């Protein structure tokens, strides 16, 4: 056996795990998606009925997808912008900057349920700190029913998500910014470039790959958000925070429609795959050599 080929054997344990814990359940889910099954009775083969129902006869699935897009866009745009801005302010390794970077990173180490508990309390219209502070500052007009108003609930949760994950993205941007050679700024300065021109012509092109990674990661992360939404609102009120992952959970574990939930999961997988593919294309477009 050639040493080169034998190295492939080391991949085998990982491959086995992947096959057993990912490929097999996925295939099983695919088979299940063609059935009607309540988890107790016998499975009934119903062909493409679940997919037909998902695409043409289930308004809540469409609503959950729309909510997912709203959530994703809010999180991607604001989290990327905020983390880049903070990274630009904090990328130099001074004591104060390191302290603030650690401070902003802190929420990342909290579990989503802890984040949900904190924000659930802060947003509470009766005892929450946000409305209380706004009231004491004479800004009652800004006080809202943050999680109870169907028009704004999804954005309130998006804000909590941004709070929880911005610190993580700052780290990626700081690494990208620190990799930019200082000579380029000196050259730009000698050419008469101001701060904005230096950012536009030096910083942004060189930090763009990091921005793409942040955007790609944040997109997938926000699409898969489940625990934060589940713990904060459970998908309500009036489906306003129902996203695909919470809807699949409700279909399976509250509705006991495991076949239909499997079909929704397949649909969800395709959506994630399309988005990931789009992000991958974008990533290639932003590569700087």
């Amino acid at each position: 056996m050639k040493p080169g080929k034998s190295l492939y054997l080391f991949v085998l344990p990982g491959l086995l795990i992947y096959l057993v814990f990912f490929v097999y359940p996925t295939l099983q889910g695919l088979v299940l998606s063609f059935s009607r099954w309540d988890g107790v009775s016998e499975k009934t083969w119903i062909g493409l009925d679940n997919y037909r129902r998902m695409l043409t006869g289930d308004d809540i699935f469409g609503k959950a997808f729309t909510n997912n897009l709203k959530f994703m866009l809010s999180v991607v745009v604001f989290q990327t912008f905020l983390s880049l801005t903070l990274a630009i302010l904090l990328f130099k390794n001074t004591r104060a900057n390191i302290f603030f970077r650690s401070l902003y990173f802190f929420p990342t180490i909290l579990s989503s349920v802890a984040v949900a508990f904190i924000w659930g309390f802060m947003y509470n219209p009766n005892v929450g700190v946000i409305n209380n502070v706004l009231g004491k500052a004479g800004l009652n007009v800004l006080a809202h029913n943050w999680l109870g108003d169907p028009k704004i609930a999804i954005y309130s949760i998006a804000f909590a998500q941004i709070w929880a994950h911005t610190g993580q993205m700052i780290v990626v941007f700081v690494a990208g910014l620190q990799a930019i050679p200082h000579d380029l700024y000196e050259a730009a300065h000698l050419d008469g470039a101001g701060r904005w021109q230096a950012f536009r012509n030096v910083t942004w092109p060189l930090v763009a790959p990091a921005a793409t990674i942040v955007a790609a990661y944040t997109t997938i992360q926000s699409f898969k958000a489940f625990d934060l939404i589940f713990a904060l609102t459970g998908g309500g009120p009036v489906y306003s925070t129902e996203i695909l992952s919470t809807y699949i959970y409700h279909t399976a574990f509250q509705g006991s429609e495991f076949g239909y939930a499997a079909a929704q999961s397949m649909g969800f997988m395709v959506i994630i795959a399309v988005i990931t593919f789009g992000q991958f294309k974008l990533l290639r477009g932003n590569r700087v050599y």
Partner: protein
Amino acid sequence: MKKWLNISAFVLILALLLAGCGKSGSSEGGGASNAAPSGEAGAKASEDSGKKEKISFVHWRGEDVKVFDELIAEFTKQNPNIEVEQNVLPSEQYLASAQAKLIDGTAGDVFASFPGAQFETFVKANLYVDLTGADFVSNYTDNLIQAGQKDGKQYALPYQLVYNQPIYNKKIFEKLNLTPPKDWDGFLALCETLKKNGYIPIAFPGADIGPGQFINSMMMNNNTDEDIWNKVETGQAKLTDEWFVKTLSQIKELNDKGYFQPDSLGTNKDIAGSLFSQEKAAMLATGSYMMASNKQQNPNLEQGLLAPITVPADQAVFEGIHTTTFMLGVNAHSKKQDAAKKFVAFLSQKENAEKYANETGQLVTVKDVQYNTPELAESAKWTDKHTRFQPRYLITVAAIEKAVTSAVQNVIAGADPAKAAADAQKVVDQNLKK
């Protein structure tokens, strides 16, 4: 040499991996009922040797584990050859988590189930031993165990009795000279008086359980047909019909007149409970099951139960809403059915049901039980009244149940009742029973 080193390393990794899997598999297999010999052979061996038999009791009430531990200790004293192990699974995923264990008989020799959809599913799957004619069934109040019957057979015994209707603060009512009203105009007048006197008339947990609880008493007299949800689920009745739109309109009226606390859709049951316990709110739109925790928060609280009557007094058919739940059953797939029945019989004895009731603050369906707290005694008065089984529990399609509770949230959020009903009916149409 290098080649052999590579192969050896690979074999070692694979062996460790498989050993890990094997270990996890075996511990999982024995997890829930590890000490119990599973299968017929195991049961027979246990009987032959006269060794202890271990049965598993699957339920969802984590808060009752302590009192069940005490009851189990007493049961084991009386039946030294039977051990009982509790397996508590979260209620939200109870069906999904319990079913596999119940079907293969590895756990849940005795198990609790919810009435309505879950009971129907379990009956269809032949999970229950027929308890009809067993001596201990006569310990229960006849009309409170109907939720566990199907086709004339008693498959499960509802153990708990709950009244899913608002709780009120008796002292506030007395202070303002108010009594539970007999009709809708009276209910509105009551709320107005409470509001004028600085109280929140109704603490409404709109973020979680409120819509699903309040809809019961709000609709009970607007549509008195106890088969109405079956008709909605099969397309014979619609949510756009007058009774449902009227129910939504009345809920909206309460909200628009400021009889719920502000921003009620952002309020969960704990916060609503606190508003009531702190005596800021005069009514709490949940159910009798919260009376014990309210009392813990405020020992001076005096609580009663009432249900809004949404029609003129002479048209009211029902006085309130009850649910009989936590239905005890013996698993038809269990190899230890005799031991399991003995345990159910033990729980069905008056003194044991009494201990359970008084220590958990829950009413029970067992006859002649004496309650030792004012809250339980107050709730027990309702057993003589004409109450209706919780309508929401009779919705068997989860998507339709959610459409109904979402319609309640929708009108509180400002939607027109007819539009909210139409939106909900659209979901119903997409989920009609086939």
